């Protein structure tokens, strides 16, 4: 009994996928491929199943948005503040902070520190090599506690004071 049920489910999924392929093929304006239905009994009643809508597509111009991982960060006065190595989001999905690999020489002595997302300015980022501005100075971030996965995250805000990350309700 249960075995038969699972077989039916597989057939239904196949039908849905089949239908979705058809929709996408229509959208792309391609000629209909050989329709030869594989499972005619299941395909006969597709209206009872919700069809998967095609994904929505947003196009952003190459100068409007950029990836941040590995991007250089500089203070407003041009001091090198390191590179963004990770981004921290809260459970609501809002971006809270960026992890910056700060200081050191040839990778020796660098520290991973966390800065408030609102202290970062992205206005100058137009190409792959443009840096992000941070409204903090080297002196303000140098003594920040090192970022560690699993430990409480201490986020540096633009005012220069240390404050714990508030995860909200």
């Amino acid at each position, binding site marked *: 009994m249960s075995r038969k049920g699972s077989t039916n489910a597989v057939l239904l999924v196949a039908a849905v996928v089949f239908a979705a392929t058809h929709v996408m093929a229509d959208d792309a304006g391609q000629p209909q491929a050989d329709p030869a239905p594989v499972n005619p009994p299941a395909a006969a009643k597709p209206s009872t199943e919700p069809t998967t809508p095609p994904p929505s597509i947003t196009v952003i111009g190459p100068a409007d948005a950029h990836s941040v991982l*590995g991007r250089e960060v500089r203070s407003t006065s041009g001091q090198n503040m390191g590179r963004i*190595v990770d981004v921290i989001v809260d459970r609501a999905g809002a971006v809270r902070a960026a992890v910056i690999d700060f*200081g050191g020489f*040839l*990778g020796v002595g*660098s520290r991973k520190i966390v800065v408030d997302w609102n202290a970062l300015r992205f206005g100058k980022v137009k190409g792959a090599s443009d840096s992000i501005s941070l409204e903090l100075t080297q002196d303000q971030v140098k003594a920040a506690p090192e970022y560690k996965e699993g430990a409480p995250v201490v986020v540096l805000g633009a005012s220069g004071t240390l404050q714990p990350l508030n995860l909200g309700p």
Partner: protein
Amino acid sequence: MAGPQDRHPSAQSQRGLDWFIFFLADVQTGFGPFVAVYLTTQKWTQSEIGLILSIGGIVGLIGQMPGGAIIDAARSERLVAGLAVATIGVSALAYAAWPIFPVVALAAILHAAASCVLGPVIAAISLGLVGPRAIGERLGRNARFASLGNGVAAGVMGVVGYLLSSRAVFVVSFAFAVATLLALARIRDREIDPEQAHGAVARTEPDPDATSVLHLLHRRPLVVFACTVFLLQFANAAMLPLMAGIVTERSSEGAPALIALCIIVPQAIVALISPSVGRKAQAWGRRPLLMIAFAALAVRGALFATVHDPSLLVAVQVLDGITAAVFGVMIPLIVADVAFGSGHFNLAQGVIGTATGIGASLSTVVAGTMSDHFGHGFAFMGLAAAALSGLLVVLTFMPETRLAEEP
């Protein structure tokens, strides 16, 4: 008695070896800290970078003894060295050209495996060229050129990385690999006695006891020395990174320059004093030098725990140079003392290399944990205590291994 052990290699071969070591240090520097920086700029996540570094570390650890065994089995040390350098050159190009996971992982494995061969092969070529009587002086010269190479490479690659990109660093590494091969070609292959390079002696009748691998691995000086090297690395490896992190924390503006000085000062000391370390090892014996190295390391740990002025820390790094110079010469020298006659000189180097690797990886883990839970001072004191126990091991267990002077 002018036997086969008193060899007089040509000046061309000696200089070829100098430059081989110099350029090889340049090639290897590019693979050190730059890998993490470069992969970060290529949008790699920290966990992927950590995985690549771990893969390289593990291969570099388990490959030590097989690497030594390959050199012991080879008939031409030069050919083995050339193949290993070529492998590293190709790995450097692969890093620069395709920073995608499978390529970088393969390149990291190849680089680590080739490095397992290249470490011992320098000492093997040296021993094959000059023989066991002159090896101390030759090893001092080796250490000088290695640290000059490291210093020059750190400068050149720092500038290249700053002005061009961290990808360009790997192209420069490839160029240095070509220069390394050219220098290697200057060493005349027929002047390297392969038997001598393996630590074998010509015997009229075979002596299975003296040439047994098991006997070599149970030889007491080798076991004690492996423990000594383990303690050295355990006490030493985490010290500079830990200290550099503190410098970053305490002084922001000049921190990168201070850290650069903390790296360069010991290299300069090694370049200056290594040749005299090689000569003193022959005059004083090995044990006093080992004790000086451990004492310097223990004092350095204690000073890092108590000194807080960042610029004074640079001065303390002179002690790092002393420890590094002594061990840079002593590791291949004592292994040559112990393993000569066995024909397994390079396997024995692999044993010591394994102890080095285990000590170094444990050091960063343990020191990091100590520093997180009890503070930097405690961590440095712990490392200093490990150095003191190394001093005690040398004092109580380590025999003098210097070969008796021939009358």
